[in-house]
């Protein structure tokens, strides 16, 4: 890649200020470091990943409001975790966390368990129990 060809496709995800560094060749074929504000394919892929996440969050939210799943499932999506990761944060087995995603089970959870989930999601217990 030549120095002039280093892409400069900015997008709002970099928040304008963030540049990454590449190695590219100058006219004599010598490698030099060059900064870039972004590249279209990467931006597309990144945006897509976030669209997918946002969609899953919205779906989970709708299902919580419909009483199908507990807020644990919603916040798991919202914090981009998956089941194994969440289970390790709250120190439970995956099947236990899965159970806690049932509204009936969630409603009977004790304070200490609720606090563990709240800590993992970095929210308060109130926020955990009442999703926005």
């Amino acid at each position, binding site marked *: 890649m030549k120095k002039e060809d280093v892409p400069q496709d900015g997008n709002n995800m970099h928040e304008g200020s963030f540049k990454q560094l590449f*190695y*590219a060749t100058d006219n004599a074929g010598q490698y030099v470091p060059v*900064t870039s504000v972004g590249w279209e394919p*990467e931006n597309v892929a990144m945006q897509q990943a976030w669209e997918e996440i946002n969609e899953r969050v919205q779906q989970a939210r709708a299902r919580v409001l419909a009483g199908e799943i507990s807020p644990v499932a919603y916040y798991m999506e919202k914090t*981009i975790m*998956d089941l194994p990761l969440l289970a390790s944060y709250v120190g439970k087995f995956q099947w236990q966390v899965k159970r806690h995603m049932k509204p009936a089970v969630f409603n009977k959870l004790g304070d200490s368990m609720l606090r563990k989930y709240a800590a993992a999601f970095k929210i308060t217990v109130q926020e955990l129990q009442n999703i926005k």
Partner: protein
Amino acid sequence: MDEVLEVMSDTQFHHAQTAHCESGVISNIFRHYGLEISEPMAFGIGAGIFFGHLPFVKVNGVPGTTYRVVPGAIFKRVSKRLGVKIASQSFSSPQKGMEALDRVLEQGRPVGLLSSVYYLPYFPPAYRFHFNAHNLVAYGKEGGNYLISDPIMEHVTEIDPKSLAEARFAKGFPAPKGKMYYPVDVPKEVSFAQPIRDGIKQACSDMLNIPLPMFGVKGMRFLAKRLKYYPEKVGDRKAVLYLGNIIRMQEEIGTGGAGFRFMYAAFLQEAAGILRRDELSELSAELTRIGDTWRTFAFNAGRVCKSRSANNVSYGELSEMLMQCAAEEEVLFRKLSKVKL
């Protein structure tokens, strides 16, 4: 030693932005002790270039692809090859880990830290996924906050103790467990010649000789074959996500797959000067062209992602492009392994 302490009391740490976190930390931290090593040189001596596709290791349901060796390996290899003694520790609790960090910082030593980008507040939000193998340097403390030189950022920054503890003790795979590392003995004079030879030998072996289909040049073909059938195997929607992940791993900040090809080409160029081997310059130019092929692949993959019209033809074409990358890299590493160094 006194001199170092004097410098550090002013928390002087020369931060240079680099392309990748691990080779960047090596370059920045070794320079602090007077061992000048460029990022590409660290990457090359550490044999950082690699390829692996692991369909059974899924991150958020998407199969993993890597363009580099496992986190930590570059650092370990470079230190060993240059004769730098490293102290490295992990911790059972955040409290112990933070206290140990403070103690080393008080001695005036900059410290490399393993962390999860999800908990680093200075990262652009769009990049904050649960990626647990990010490396950064803490070089001091000021007003309760830690002074941070994150190699992929343009400038030094600060972080509050709570966020840093969260980042260092993130859960998941691989769990960083507060890992910290710092040089305790850096040789005054270092010759790069033998470390370069060892690094090249290892890179060739990793790219060509691992007897498993997922790794090295074989891994590229492995991915190419699977990629072709993504739409019919997992459906259009997931196929696009899988493809998107390949691009992100290739181009995203600090993971740069094609970026790694260019970085390795920069290494070969530097090595050619040190070892006085013109063949290495030629191979550097050849790898630059391969890097461009990778970028063409990413560019086309990006288009398929964007259009979302996942027709099988486009996936077939992308698969062929990957096969082309594999063929070119195989030729390159075979030539490289035959250069008399």
